[in-house]
């Protein structure tokens, strides 16, 4: 019974990880870049929401909207400053370091918005459901469904709209997307905005379930998203979902059976193991240096 309860808790929480990982995967899949400022743009959204809450005063709805919009706005800011100036093949390093620098900046700005370090974050009260001994927290069920709807909307956008077609085309080959009429510069902004929206939703779910926000959330969510993405397979959307759920599942079990202090050890150990044994992630391709040799243009 404990096992089942822990598994369900883990998977429900993992749905938020999946959203974080999707944001990362979207950016990596389309831009082939790592956005280290991702977590802190989500933190910025959350901090802004807390700061503006007394002014707007719509309760949880207002907090949700500001978190999502703030994260998307910060994402676009990051894209303009760190990624669009470094589009060429040699820009990989520069864009990564620039995004690290903006991570520091957004963290600092968020800290200024959260002067007491720990602030309460609007939660949603829904009664817990229990059947045959399994207890499901109401807010976590809501999380799960919000995550499902968000993922569904993402898939719909990517596979049923012209905008999605352009995004997917530019993931394969920016030149083709250009020929199809996509303005590559705007596609970059749209990608970061979309990733920001997904991450903003995830941030709201996680923060409201914790009931509080601290400046540590930026680093935390960058790590969790990155790890979930690497577990599942870099740049693969189904991989991100599987990786997120797996991470939630594994963390819940380690916390339950070994204690919270072993949670992070296991997370990093698991990731290192997967990188050594199957670097492409569970659903990604096996990418070794030698295997890639042939694919590279000689």
């Amino acid at each position, binding site marked *: 019974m404990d096992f089942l309860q822990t598994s369900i808790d883990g998977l429900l929480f993992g749905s938020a990880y999946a959203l974080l990982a999707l944001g990362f995967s979207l950016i990596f899949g389309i831009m082939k870049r790592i956005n280290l400022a991702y977590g802190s743009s989500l933190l910025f959204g959350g901090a802004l929401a807390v700061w503006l809450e007394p002014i707007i005063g719509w309760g949880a709805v207002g907090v949700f909207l500001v978190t999502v919009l703030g994260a998307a706005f910060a994402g676009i800011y990051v894209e303009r400053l760190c990624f669009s*100036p470094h589009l060429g093949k040699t820009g990989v390093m*520069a864009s990564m*370091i620039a995004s690290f*620098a903006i991570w520091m900046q957004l963290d600092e700005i968020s800290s200024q918005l959260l002067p007491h370090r720990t602030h309460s974050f609007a939660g949603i009260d829904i009664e817990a459901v229990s059947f045959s001994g399994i207890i499901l927290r109401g807010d976590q069920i809501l999380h799960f469904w919000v995550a499902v709807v968000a993922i569904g909307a993402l898939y719909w956008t990517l596979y049923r709209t012209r905008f999605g077609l352009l995004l997917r085309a530019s993931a394969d080959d920016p030149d083709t997307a250009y020929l199809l009429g996509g303005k590559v510069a705007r596609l970059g902004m749209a990608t970061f905005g979309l990733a920001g929206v997904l991450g903003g939703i995830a941030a709201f779910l996680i923060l409201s379930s914790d009931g509080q926000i601290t400046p540590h959330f930026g680093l935390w969510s960058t790590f969790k998203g990155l790890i979930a993405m690497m577990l599942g397979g870099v740049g693969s959307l189904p991989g991100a979902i599987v990786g997120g759920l797996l991470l939630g599942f594994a963390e819940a079990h380690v916390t339950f059976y070994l204690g919270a*202090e072993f949670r*992070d050890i296991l997370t990093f*150990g698991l990731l*290192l193991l997967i990188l050594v044994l199957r670097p492409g992630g569970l659903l990604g391709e096996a990418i070794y240096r030698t295997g890639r040799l042939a694919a590279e243009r000689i």
Partner: protein
Amino acid sequence: MSLYVASTLTNVALISFLALSAYLVLVVGEVSFGQQAFFAIGAYVTATVTAIFGGHIILALFLSTIAGGLAALLLAALVIRLSGLYFAIASLCFAELLRLTLLRIRIPLEIDGRSTGMDGPEGFSNIRWIFENDFEVTDFLILTVVCLLALLLLLFYFERTTVMLRARLVGRDSLLAQSLGVRPDHYRMAFIGLSGMVAGFGGALFALFNTHIEPQMFGVMLGVHALAYTVIGGLGAPLGPLIGVGIDIGLLESIRALSEYRMIAFGGLVAVLLIIFPQGLLSPRAVNRLWGRIRRRDV
């Protein structure tokens, strides 16, 4: 020299070791988020040797350097097949695993009535070498700077050798390197090992200077800062990383009015610098052009 200036300069020099170790990895084309691990290993080894066993500082520095190098070689051996993002994340995992493990190791000791030894999150206290040897802050600054200059001279000499040229080639274009008979994996292993030695040495001095170390000092922020210093400073010459460190700690920290907003300023500055100088301030091409001017050597 005021105490504040001396200790700021010492910190600049200490972080420079870490930045130089990130530089050595970047030279062979890899990005490491985990150099702080070797820094931490160096720090803990020196703390153990001097504070617990009362060993000589030379022995401590030597063992720290070796330990850092061996740990780096271990990481390299595990993930030598990986590159790019995968290598970066693997190095991050390695460093975080080490830090989390250090948090769990508790072997507190009491020596001469003072608590010392590894004590999990409490850290390793009373590394009293500088007190026992009557080192003032300025004395230690001189020691650190001399060591740093020696390392820099070594690297400058190294820079114009065929080995370094080939290492850079491996970093830029691994396929071309192979077509010229250069074995990339050997260069990667060797340079990652070297980077671990440099970081281990720096970590050793760090432990002596701080007299107290704890696992939280060696978080991922430390490593990524070292990396950022190197990238904005430029990969053209070993001076690049030092310029990066100087800009952040030396320049921004000295403007005290900025202190509260230092990271906001630094973050924006780095992003803008990278737009203007995508290859860093001392880019390889700029450095090579300079060399061409200075020394019109024979073919």
